[in-house]
């Protein structure tokens, strides 16, 4: 449905950000992202647009749930 990949912000110029995934660099539009991202943030990119900032804390928390004895109660 909607292929989207995490990319790291390297620079921001108004509505356009330079992003990278590994050593591959590209540009994305920032017109529809809800939180203005900062350099160093990861965003999820779809069709050349940054869709959302990736929340590292939430991600780590999700992982922690597994690692702590696979307690899989969600939310």
């Amino acid at each position, binding site marked *: *449905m*909607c*292929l989207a*990949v995490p*990319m790291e912000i390297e620079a921001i110029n108004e509505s356009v950000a330079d992003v990278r*995934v*590994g*050593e*591959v*660099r*590209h540009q994305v539009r920032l017109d529809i992202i809800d939180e203005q991202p900062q350099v160093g943030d990861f965003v999820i*990119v*779809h*069709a050349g647009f940054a869709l959302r900032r990736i929340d590292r804390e939430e991600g780590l928390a999700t992982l922690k749930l597994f690692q702590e004895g696979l307690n899989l109660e969600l939310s």
Partner: protein
Amino acid sequence: MNDAKVLLDYGSGGRASHRLIGELLLRHFRSPELARLNDAAVLDLRGPVAVSTDSFTVDPIFFPGGDIGSLAVHGTVNDVAMLGARPLYLTCALILEEGLPMADLERIVASLGQAADAAGVAVVTGDTKVMPRGQADKIFINTTGIGQIMVATPPSGDRARPGDAILVSGSMGDHGLTILSQREGLAFDAPVESDSACLSHLILKLLEALPDIHVLRDPTRGGLATTLNEIAGQSRAGCLIEESSLPVKQAVKAGCSFLGLDPLYLANEGKFICILPEAQADAALSILRADPLGKDAARIGTVTAENPGKVVMRTPLGGHRMLSMLEGEQLPRIC
């Protein structure tokens, strides 16, 4: 050549054609047989011979890691080598678009000449046509390669046997991703270059030590997935590939990730698949890895009696899926 751009006259067969041959082609293809300017070249060949032909139409004509000239040598020389042959001779037929900058043509012809020298092949005969603007795209090159077969039973796509080990000589998808990264309207910046290279010396080294290699094939257009499917079909055997063992560069993975592409369907121009008896796999890997062109060589799977004609991939989770042949080329996608 006085003109800044290729003119239609260069393909006329008249004086302008002769100037192009004399002042440009003979200078870069230093071959006495070519210089005789006959209708055909006379070659001395003994015994079984391998012959392959390919037309090269790559766009852009210059790309990181190579150009259409060197590619036209590597592509054909490699195909000849895949039959266990030492490439010796090359024919070279150019189709030029009127208006091609002479500087580009010279650069390509020089690169082709150097690549031929490096590969140890002589350009022995050729042809040049010039098409009106808009009836060809810049330059197309056809090369036909001829080589002497060096082993009693040449490797062939139909000789994969259950139990054989499947190796690749290096990372997959470098050429394809490099070309994609240069496409107009798609251009992205990736630290990757075409792997375009002549593989014949490495092949010959391998065959000298291990003359019973069953299959050699370079996964060019269509990539590893397509080529393995071809082999599976020709040999009526299955291929079981271990996904986690596939060498793919980080940059290639990354470039593929956001375009929705699979590196296993991207072209390679300096890699080959080697299928041989299991017992010889380690020896082959050490020979490969000792060579700069084979330093990332890996064993990626096994030929199976099950699933004849199919290529099955074992995923890192231990699941299985088919690696099938695509209908056409991969396109960037959003879903």
